[in-house]
């Protein structure tokens, strides 16, 4: 066996070992499956009387340190594909994306403006109607979004004005059903594009 092979093997071994540690840590942190089933149970849990940007648990902190994020589980299996195929535009629902920092996630009322009449017999639409009937909004979970510890202030509007395609950061939604994180919004991802487009890569352009 050659020397380089040995080195490679050792590297692999270390990687596997580290991976195991992370796996064990994340298993320890496994939350109960209750969270993964939507809709979440409607108990009256009193959350902490204090707000702090701290992590809830040490495990949370460790997980964030290694950059692992939980997969969002949506209460309703909304399909972007179908809606876009029907000729809708992103901005029809995600209003405000061209005007301000954030895009709106439509409320149950907004969805029901169409689904009052359209496809009312489908099970997912029935779920939707049930939310409306209970007077509740849909507890959508965030798919993207920066971690608070990234201290990033992203503003959609200038990007839309600059002609950045939605798909560039969010993937091709015409092929997606329930939205999943297709693009990793790492700093490298942002900076690369900023460099290519010759726009500011000053830290304070995003971090403040």
């Amino acid at each position, binding site marked *: 066996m050659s020397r380089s092979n040995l080195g490679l093997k050792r590297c692999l071994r270390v990687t596997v070992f580290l991976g195991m540690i992370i796996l064990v840590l994340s298993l320890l942190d496994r939350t109960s499956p209750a969270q993964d089933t939507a809709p979440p149970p409607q108990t009256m*849990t009193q*959350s902490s009387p204090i707000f702090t940007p701290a992590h809830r648990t040490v495990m949370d902190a460790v997980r964030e340190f290694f950059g692992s994020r939980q997969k969002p589980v949506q209460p309703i299996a909304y399909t972007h594909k179908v809606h876009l195929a029907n000729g809708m535009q992103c901005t029809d629902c995600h209003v*405000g994306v061209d005007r301000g920092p954030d895009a709106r996630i439509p409320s149950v009322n907004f969805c029901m403006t169409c689904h009052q009449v359209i496809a009312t017999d489908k099970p997912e639409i029935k779920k939707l109607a049930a939310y409306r009937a209970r007077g509740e909004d849909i*507890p959508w979970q965030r798919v993207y979004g920066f971690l608070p510890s990234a201290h990033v202030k992203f503003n959609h509007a200038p990007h839309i004005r600059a002609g950045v395609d939605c798909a560039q950061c969010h993937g091709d939604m015409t092929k997606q059903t329930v939205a999943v994180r297709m693009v990793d919004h790492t700093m490298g991802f942002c900076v690369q594009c900023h460099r290519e487009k010759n726009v500011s890569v000053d830290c304070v352009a995003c971090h403040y």
Partner: protein
Amino acid sequence: MERRDFLKISAATGAVAALEGCGNPDHQLIRFVPEEDMLPGLATWKPSICTLCPAGCGMLVRVMQGEAEVVRNGQLGILKMGLPKKLEGNPAHPISHGRLCPRGQAGLQVTYHPDRIKTPLARSGPRGSGQFQEITWDEAMKQLLSHLTALQTSNEQGKIGFLTSPLRGQRKTIVHGFAAALKAAPPIEFAFLASRTIQEANAWSFGSDALPTVDLSHSNYLISFGADFLGTWNSPVAQSVGYGHMRNGRTGQPGKFVQVESRISQTGASADEWIPSQPGMDGVFALSLAHVILSEKLGTAGAAGHAGALIAGWSEGLPDYAPAAVEKQIGVPAATISRIAREAAANAPAVALIGDGPAAHTNGFFNALAVNALNAVLGSVGKPGGIVFSPVWTSQSGKPGAAEGKKDGESSVRTLAEQIHATPDSVKVLLVDGANPVFATPMAWRVREAFEKVPFIASFGSFIDETTVLADLILPDHSPLESWLDDSPESGSTKTVASLAPPAMQPLHNTRSMPDVLLDLAHQLGGPVAAALPWKTYDDALKIAFSSLQKQKGSVSATDADDFWTKVKDQGGWWSAEDKSVSLAAGKIPAAAVKNTAPQFDGSPDQFPFHFLPFASQLCYDGSLAHLPWMQESPDPLSTVMWGTWVEMNPRTAEKLAIKQGDTIEVASQHGSLRAPALIAPGIAPDVIAMPIGQGHTNFTRYASGRGANPISILAPMVESGTGSLAWAATRVKISHISEGKIVMFGASLTDASPELKHR
């Protein structure tokens, strides 16, 4: 274990417990359908009015979408709603000019305070224990109604008392209308810093029962007798804007500012010349200045008109007030007096102000009249650069029952307490709104004991404070940002101002606006009460009241009533187009010209060697803002003290008594004693000790309770001889060193060199 650690641990264990069950507890909460369609991340600006002091500044509220944990229909959930994020002055508003003072900035924390009363409460423990149980609004209204109707049927409506903070505008109309229609006792409007003596003096001198609007931006010379006009007195924001203009905002020379007081106030700190005078001698000082002006023919006696004629000896040129004769009395060299008088006369327009401190002596009324006369002889009354009385808009809601009540000072609470002590049955139901007299009156008045004798107290308070804790029933009011608001300030602008603001946000908690509760009560009481208050809601009443302004020339022009209403709402009110001041009628004509009497002090100088000077805190104001963390943690501008109180004394005094910075000392008057840390600062006369009002709450949220001491509590029940107001600067005290202690200060050093290094 410290509170902080406890909170941390409980938060940690709570979080762990929640995690074991079901991950992120926020996801557990149901989400209510947003009632408001706002775009996330985009700010909208809504007008509002600052209600934290009587100045009545117009504000703009920056509202952004956020997620609030709220209870709706008994269920806790998350609601996407518009949340106020920042308060700024309204640039269009003629009082705030787009600026806001530190207290106004902190108004946000009133709304978001963790200890706000979130739902109606009924007392469940002994009175004053602070034990309450949550009830529904229906139950609460039923309880209150039953008490009111019981008195109605037994024809004892006169035994219903109504105690409020100073009211203006339509809120006043409704409260007074309610009381009048119910045939209850006239409402008592209580505030510690009510400036009642000055208002009364202005009525005598100038015929206007109001605080003056000070046109500082045109003044060239300003003599302020203890007026903290840049901090807490009258309309601080408007005055600060004018002051900035006077100092350096205009071409030509900046004006000079002379402050006369025995302890450097936050305002006095900015003065070009600070003149310490003997407490209670401000009137003599003012007349001594007038004497110089008259004797040196820098002004004529006649020019002072009625304001001068009120003063005994005025037409003779005030012979008793020659500087040389009074310099000992005032404690100011005669040369200084003459110089100031000459400077003032030579730098017209010159203006003199009198603040609450000098008016809070037994001769305070005379002091105020004397300063008024000085102003008159300086020719600054009703003129640019002087003091102006602006016309106040009295809302005409078209209802005869809604009479404007007479202004009353804090003395009426004393009367009320005396009345209850004399005949315990005289007040059977007491309604309290905003006022906290149990905190803000001397113990010697025995207000708490009196209130404890009242069979039923209902409070509209948003917080459990020293007065509300005595209540049997609490019907929590909205926070100002959640309410409709209107205001017609009496000073601060030369324009007539009628401020109006719709709610800037939906209510966070299960609260109701007090005027709406009263209207609802009136409706349910029926009969003449319902007839006197015919409006369905508070905003109905406002709309009707404001419609009368449409015809007048002002900041809003509109084609029809609805258009006018919309525009007024958007602008945050209506103000007149032109600067106008009320034509000054001759004031009250007394039987005889007013003569000075030496100020009286409680306690003999031998036994109680120090004058005790309480003063309004720049941040906690009269104590009503001590519950806001921002106010507690912002360093006081002069002492830099945070989260506490202090007793200020001269280094010479401290040296004599062997007191070091931060030592705990006891301050005792004939009527009580308190303990607080000493603050040694040079800006105070050696025979005076001063203490900020604001701390010393026994029962006022987690941030203010049990913190510091309340100087009001040990005050002697001295009264101003002319108006009957509390002479809160007329107490003498003694001090004794108790132990070493500490004081939390942000600034490490009082001077630009440490005393430790002085010897080099």
